Protein backbone atom coordinates (compact mmCIF):
# COMPACT_ATOMS: atom_id res chain seq x y z
CA UNK A 1 0.00 0.00 0.00
CA UNK A 2 2.06 2.99 -1.15
CA UNK A 3 -0.65 5.30 0.20
CA UNK A 4 -0.71 4.89 3.97
CA UNK A 5 -3.59 6.04 6.15
CA UNK A 6 -2.13 7.44 9.37
CA UNK A 7 -5.45 7.87 11.06
CA UNK A 8 -4.34 6.11 14.26
CA UNK A 9 -1.33 8.43 14.71
CA UNK A 10 -3.46 11.56 14.48
CA UNK A 11 -6.08 10.03 16.78
CA UNK A 12 -3.43 9.30 19.37
CA UNK A 13 -2.06 12.87 19.12
CA UNK A 14 -5.53 14.35 19.60
CA UNK A 15 -6.48 11.78 22.30
CA UNK A 16 -9.67 10.82 20.45
CA UNK A 17 -11.10 7.31 20.61
CA UNK A 18 -12.55 5.46 17.62
CA UNK A 19 -16.05 5.79 19.07
CA UNK A 20 -15.72 9.55 19.51
CA UNK A 21 -14.37 9.97 15.98
CA UNK A 22 -17.11 7.77 14.56
CA UNK A 23 -19.69 10.06 16.15
CA UNK A 24 -18.04 13.29 15.07
CA UNK A 25 -17.41 12.15 11.50
CA UNK A 26 -20.77 10.39 11.14
CA UNK A 27 -19.23 7.18 9.86
CA UNK A 28 -20.00 3.70 11.17
CA UNK A 29 -17.26 1.99 13.19
CA UNK A 30 -16.91 -0.68 10.52
CA UNK A 31 -16.34 1.93 7.79
CA UNK A 32 -13.79 3.74 9.97
CA UNK A 33 -11.89 0.52 10.55
CA UNK A 34 -11.93 -0.26 6.80
CA UNK A 35 -10.27 3.12 6.33
CA UNK A 36 -7.80 2.64 9.24
CA UNK A 37 -6.68 -0.80 8.14
CA UNK A 38 -6.06 0.33 4.58
CA UNK A 39 -8.78 -1.84 3.03
CA UNK A 40 -10.61 1.12 1.51
CA UNK A 41 -10.22 1.69 -2.22
CA UNK A 42 -11.17 5.35 -2.28
CA UNK A 43 -11.95 8.18 0.11
CA UNK A 44 -14.77 10.71 -0.26
CA UNK A 45 -13.82 14.36 -0.04
CA UNK A 46 -16.68 14.77 2.41
CA UNK A 47 -15.16 12.10 4.67
CA UNK A 48 -11.71 13.66 4.41
CA UNK A 49 -13.18 17.05 5.29
CA UNK A 50 -15.06 15.67 8.33
CA UNK A 51 -11.92 13.91 9.61
CA UNK A 52 -9.74 16.99 9.12
CA UNK A 53 -12.30 19.06 10.98
CA UNK A 54 -12.68 16.55 13.82
CA UNK A 55 -8.94 16.04 14.27
CA UNK A 56 -8.02 19.64 13.44
CA UNK A 57 -5.40 18.62 10.90
CA UNK A 58 -4.58 18.59 7.19
CA UNK A 59 -5.11 15.75 4.65
CA UNK A 60 -1.32 15.40 4.56
CA UNK A 61 -1.35 14.38 8.24
CA UNK A 62 -3.63 11.43 7.49
CA UNK A 63 -2.51 10.33 4.03
CA UNK A 64 1.11 9.56 3.28
CA UNK A 65 2.74 8.38 0.07
CA UNK A 66 5.49 5.82 0.66
CA UNK A 67 7.82 4.99 -2.20
Amino acid at each position, binding site marked *: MPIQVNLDVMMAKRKISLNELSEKVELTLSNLS*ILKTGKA*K*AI*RFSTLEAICKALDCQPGDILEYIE
Partner: protein
Amino acid sequence: MNKMLKALYVLAWILFIGLCIRTGVILVTFLISIGINPEASSNLYEGLDLSSVMDANWVHYTLITGLIISIWALKSWMLFGVIQIFQKLKIQDPFHFSISKKITQISHVALLVGVLSILSFAYGRWLVDQGLMLNHFSESVRGGMEFLFMAGIFYVFAVIFRRGVEIQQEHELTI
Protein backbone atom coordinates in the same frame (compact mmCIF):
# COMPACT_ATOMS: atom_id res chain seq x y z
CA MET B 1 -42.41 2.12 -3.33
CA ASN B 2 -41.62 -0.43 -0.65
CA LYS B 3 -45.35 -1.15 -0.33
CA MET B 4 -45.50 -2.02 -4.00
CA LEU B 5 -42.62 -4.47 -3.55
CA LYS B 6 -44.38 -6.05 -0.59
CA ALA B 7 -47.58 -6.40 -2.64
CA LEU B 8 -45.60 -8.09 -5.42
CA TYR B 9 -43.94 -10.37 -2.87
CA VAL B 10 -47.33 -11.47 -1.57
CA LEU B 11 -48.58 -11.91 -5.16
CA ALA B 12 -45.57 -14.10 -5.95
CA TRP B 13 -46.37 -16.28 -2.93
CA ILE B 14 -50.02 -16.59 -4.01
CA LEU B 15 -49.04 -17.52 -7.58
CA PHE B 16 -46.43 -19.96 -6.24
CA ILE B 17 -48.87 -21.72 -3.92
CA GLY B 18 -51.48 -21.80 -6.69
CA LEU B 19 -49.00 -23.38 -9.10
CA CYS B 20 -47.86 -25.91 -6.49
CA ILE B 21 -51.46 -26.95 -5.89
CA ARG B 22 -52.08 -27.26 -9.65
CA THR B 23 -48.94 -29.33 -10.07
CA GLY B 24 -49.80 -31.50 -7.08
CA VAL B 25 -53.39 -32.09 -8.21
CA ILE B 26 -52.48 -33.10 -11.76
CA LEU B 27 -49.69 -35.34 -10.46
CA VAL B 28 -52.11 -37.12 -8.13
CA THR B 29 -54.87 -37.53 -10.76
CA PHE B 30 -52.23 -38.78 -13.20
CA LEU B 31 -51.02 -41.40 -10.71
CA ILE B 32 -54.63 -42.41 -10.01
CA SER B 33 -55.30 -42.69 -13.77
CA ILE B 34 -52.42 -45.09 -14.35
CA GLY B 35 -52.68 -47.03 -11.08
CA ILE B 36 -56.20 -47.13 -9.78
CA ASN B 37 -58.85 -45.74 -12.07
CA PRO B 38 -58.24 -45.00 -15.80
CA GLU B 39 -61.39 -42.86 -15.74
CA ALA B 40 -59.37 -40.13 -14.01
CA SER B 41 -57.65 -39.37 -17.32
CA SER B 42 -60.86 -37.77 -18.58
CA ASN B 43 -60.52 -34.94 -16.05
CA LEU B 44 -56.92 -34.54 -14.96
CA TYR B 45 -57.25 -30.89 -14.02
CA GLU B 46 -60.15 -28.49 -14.59
CA GLY B 47 -61.53 -30.31 -17.61
CA LEU B 48 -58.18 -31.39 -19.07
CA ASP B 49 -59.26 -34.58 -20.84
CA LEU B 50 -56.55 -36.87 -22.21
CA SER B 51 -58.58 -40.11 -22.00
CA SER B 52 -58.53 -40.43 -25.78
CA VAL B 53 -54.70 -40.41 -25.71
CA MET B 54 -54.65 -42.92 -22.86
CA ASP B 55 -56.96 -45.30 -24.71
CA ALA B 56 -54.81 -45.02 -27.83
CA ASN B 57 -51.30 -45.36 -26.42
CA TRP B 58 -50.06 -45.23 -22.84
CA VAL B 59 -46.58 -44.06 -23.92
CA HIS B 60 -48.00 -40.93 -25.52
CA TYR B 61 -50.28 -40.48 -22.53
CA THR B 62 -47.43 -40.69 -20.02
CA LEU B 63 -45.20 -38.49 -22.15
CA ILE B 64 -47.67 -35.66 -22.69
CA THR B 65 -48.92 -35.68 -19.10
CA GLY B 66 -45.32 -35.81 -17.92
CA LEU B 67 -44.57 -32.75 -20.06
CA ILE B 68 -47.47 -30.80 -18.57
CA ILE B 69 -46.44 -31.76 -15.03
CA SER B 70 -42.80 -30.82 -15.72
CA ILE B 71 -43.78 -27.45 -17.15
CA TRP B 72 -45.97 -26.62 -14.17
CA ALA B 73 -43.32 -27.81 -11.72
CA LEU B 74 -40.67 -25.69 -13.47
CA LYS B 75 -42.98 -22.67 -13.37
CA SER B 76 -43.38 -23.21 -9.63
CA TRP B 77 -39.63 -23.40 -9.24
CA MET B 78 -39.22 -20.18 -11.23
CA LEU B 79 -41.65 -18.43 -8.92
CA PHE B 80 -39.84 -19.80 -5.90
CA GLY B 81 -36.66 -18.24 -7.29
CA VAL B 82 -38.48 -14.91 -7.58
CA ILE B 83 -39.64 -15.26 -3.96
CA GLN B 84 -36.07 -15.95 -2.82
CA ILE B 85 -34.88 -12.84 -4.63
CA PHE B 86 -37.54 -10.77 -2.88
CA GLN B 87 -36.36 -12.16 0.45
CA LYS B 88 -32.72 -11.25 -0.15
CA LEU B 89 -33.30 -7.93 -1.87
CA LYS B 90 -32.52 -4.70 -0.02
CA ILE B 91 -33.44 -1.65 -2.07
CA GLN B 92 -30.64 0.54 -0.68
CA ASP B 93 -28.05 -2.12 -1.36
CA PRO B 94 -29.50 -4.42 -4.04
CA PHE B 95 -26.48 -5.74 -5.93
CA HIS B 96 -25.23 -8.97 -4.47
CA PHE B 97 -23.61 -11.93 -6.13
CA SER B 98 -26.11 -14.43 -4.70
CA ILE B 99 -29.01 -12.53 -6.30
CA SER B 100 -27.16 -12.29 -9.62
CA LYS B 101 -26.79 -16.09 -9.57
CA LYS B 102 -30.50 -16.54 -8.82
CA ILE B 103 -31.47 -14.31 -11.73
CA THR B 104 -29.29 -16.32 -14.12
CA GLN B 105 -30.89 -19.49 -12.79
CA ILE B 106 -34.42 -18.12 -13.33
CA SER B 107 -33.46 -17.18 -16.87
CA HIS B 108 -32.41 -20.79 -17.55
CA VAL B 109 -35.61 -22.19 -16.04
CA ALA B 110 -37.72 -19.75 -18.09
CA LEU B 111 -35.87 -20.90 -21.22
CA LEU B 112 -36.67 -24.51 -20.37
CA VAL B 113 -40.33 -23.69 -19.69
CA GLY B 114 -40.55 -21.87 -23.02
CA VAL B 115 -38.97 -24.68 -25.03
CA LEU B 116 -40.99 -27.41 -23.29
CA SER B 117 -44.23 -25.44 -23.74
CA ILE B 118 -43.65 -24.98 -27.46
CA LEU B 119 -42.67 -28.64 -27.86
CA SER B 120 -45.71 -29.83 -25.91
CA PHE B 121 -47.99 -27.57 -27.92
CA ALA B 122 -46.64 -29.00 -31.17
CA TYR B 123 -46.82 -32.53 -29.75
CA GLY B 124 -50.46 -32.00 -28.77
CA ARG B 125 -51.25 -30.69 -32.23
CA TRP B 126 -49.60 -33.74 -33.77
CA LEU B 127 -51.70 -36.03 -31.54
CA VAL B 128 -54.83 -34.17 -32.71
CA ASP B 129 -53.69 -34.71 -36.30
CA GLN B 130 -53.55 -38.43 -35.50
CA GLY B 131 -57.27 -38.23 -34.77
CA LEU B 132 -57.11 -38.02 -30.97
CA MET B 133 -59.24 -35.69 -28.83
CA LEU B 134 -57.41 -33.38 -26.41
CA ASN B 135 -59.79 -31.23 -24.40
CA HIS B 136 -58.47 -28.11 -22.65
CA PHE B 137 -54.95 -29.16 -23.51
CA SER B 138 -53.61 -26.00 -25.19
CA GLU B 139 -54.44 -23.89 -22.11
CA SER B 140 -52.18 -26.16 -20.05
CA VAL B 141 -49.05 -25.44 -22.07
CA ARG B 142 -49.71 -21.96 -23.44
CA GLY B 143 -47.39 -18.97 -23.12
CA GLY B 144 -44.30 -20.66 -24.58
CA MET B 145 -43.19 -17.63 -26.59
CA GLU B 146 -43.79 -15.38 -23.60
CA PHE B 147 -41.52 -17.54 -21.48
CA LEU B 148 -38.78 -17.52 -24.12
CA PHE B 149 -39.01 -13.75 -24.19
CA MET B 150 -38.92 -13.67 -20.38
CA ALA B 151 -35.81 -15.87 -20.43
CA GLY B 152 -34.09 -13.31 -22.66
CA ILE B 153 -35.16 -10.44 -20.42
CA PHE B 154 -33.89 -12.23 -17.32
CA TYR B 155 -30.61 -12.97 -19.06
CA VAL B 156 -30.04 -9.31 -19.96
CA PHE B 157 -31.06 -8.37 -16.44
CA ALA B 158 -28.51 -10.83 -15.03
CA VAL B 159 -25.73 -9.32 -17.17
CA ILE B 160 -26.59 -5.77 -16.07
CA PHE B 161 -26.91 -6.93 -12.48
CA ARG B 162 -23.46 -8.51 -12.49
CA ARG B 163 -21.99 -5.14 -13.50
CA GLY B 164 -24.03 -3.60 -10.67
CA VAL B 165 -22.40 -6.01 -8.22
CA GLU B 166 -18.95 -4.85 -9.35
CA ILE B 167 -19.83 -1.18 -9.06
CA GLN B 168 -21.46 -1.64 -5.67
CA GLN B 169 -18.41 -3.48 -4.32
CA GLU B 170 -16.24 -0.49 -5.22
CA HIS B 171 -18.89 1.80 -3.80
CA GLU B 172 -18.78 -0.05 -0.49
CA LEU B 173 -15.01 0.42 -0.29
CA THR B 174 -15.32 4.14 -0.92
CA ILE B 175 -15.45 5.54 2.58
